[in-house]
């Protein structure tokens, strides 16, 4: 049998690791250096390990008034889920309107973005 060390498939066990926690938040803030508004956890301090110039990029100094992070799960679509009487799932996503408080924070409301 071929027992090459190149075949390590079964060592790559990905089913038992925890989820990619804070994936979007961490990637945008630390890799892209454009943190999400209100995200003091990742946006307040730059990861100086990889960047020499820490002053570059965006920065979050103030939390949003309600302590939220401006990350909104806009739509979720379940095209493969088949349930009785729910045939619309195939092509219609569930869309959640953006928080009403974004009007105060960013001057953007659902009416502005509905067409996008």
């Amino acid at each position, binding site marked *: 049998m071929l027992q090459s060390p190149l*075949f390590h498939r079964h060592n790559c066990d*990905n089913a038992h690791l925890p989820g990619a926690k804070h994936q979007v938040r961490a990637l945008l803030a630390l890799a892209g250096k454009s943190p999400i508004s209100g995200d003091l956890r990742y946006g*307040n301090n730059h990861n100086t390990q990889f960047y020499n110039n820490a002053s*570059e990029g965006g920065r979050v100094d103030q939390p949003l008034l309600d302590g939220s992070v401006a990350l909104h799960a806009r739509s979720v679509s379940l095209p493969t889920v088949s349930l009785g009487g729910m045939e619309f799932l195939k092509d219609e996503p*569930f869309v*959640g309107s953006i928080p009403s408080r974004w009007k105060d924070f960013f001057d953007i409301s659902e009416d502005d973005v509905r067409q996008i």
Partner: protein
Amino acid sequence: MIARSPMHRYCIYYYPPSLFLLIMGWFIMRIPYQHVSASRTHLILSTITMPSSRAHLLSMRQSCFSFCCTTSNMTCRNMSCFAKPNMYQPSKRTISKQQYSSAAAAAAATKRKKIPKQLESPEVIYSNNHLLVVNKPAGWKSQPGNGGGSSSSSEIDPKCLLTYLKSQSLGGGSNKDFLIPTHRLDQPCTGVLIFAKNGKAASRVQTAWAKRKIKKTYWVVVEGNSQTTSKRNDKMNGLDMLIKQSTRTKAKNIYKLSAILKSTKGNNRRGNRRTNNNNAGGSVLVKPLPPNYFSLSDENSKDGRVCHIEWKHLRALSGERHLLSVSTDTGKSAFVLFCLVLLCVQYEDSTTWLLYLAFIRLCLTAFAPHALIYVTITSLSSS
């Protein structure tokens, strides 16, 4: 010790020129990758989203760019842990009315002390006998406990959305309190959250999550840098750091950002605080990858997991803020699509090695990531 087979000769350990071939193969692999990923996104965009002409109109009107993006989001592979029922079943215990009243009293007490205003009540987007879809306002926890997935905390959390929805009789079953969360959102974040009202629906949705068949799009508001270095004064002003770190895909205005993510949760539990210094309190360690990075696989390594997000600029807001649409990326099914697109697009002017390439891509999806190297070597050396 190890049985030798004829194929084994081509293995890197035994065949010195194979190292050269491997490097060559890697370079060849890199070139069409951008084409392919871009075409893939195009394809998906054309099938899923609305026509972009409307967005063009909008952009003309408001002199800022807005766009629709619903990229295929096969959520990160590790979300598959949600599919494990033992980890994600809510507590089955029924809560008596006394407990409820005491909990309400406790909640009122804590609210008086800590939270000046009440949490916004969630808006129900859809509900039938299978699913309950709510729009989670900020501040609610999507599950009991501290986000660790354990639902065994003895006290009832007043900020837990699951408990609240059950108490509002929005669940399924005879008691209207049977609800199973199928995914979660961070506490300060908002958006669509899907609950299942019976076991069948729960298992189907969770399977779809595990297979990364669910498309999820986030909208985020990011802070651009104020002192921008780019000369041109355009709509993306202030996002040049983000653009610099990202790979431009061929699809219009969609960028891809890659990094290696490593959760430091386990370290923290053991009292290892070393990672916190690098990371400003976040529990995720990020190692950015350069633009145009091509990974052989999205598998986990010891350093963490290669993660990609695709982002698209929707609109410039006041200040240096920008509204982006973000989706997490690339499941295996997307790779198969890569191959098909490659075959379709480049078949006419392609030579046989392009077909080879497609075949190799297919192999990547079908077999172990390391098999890719092997196939490259064997195919090149045999031709």
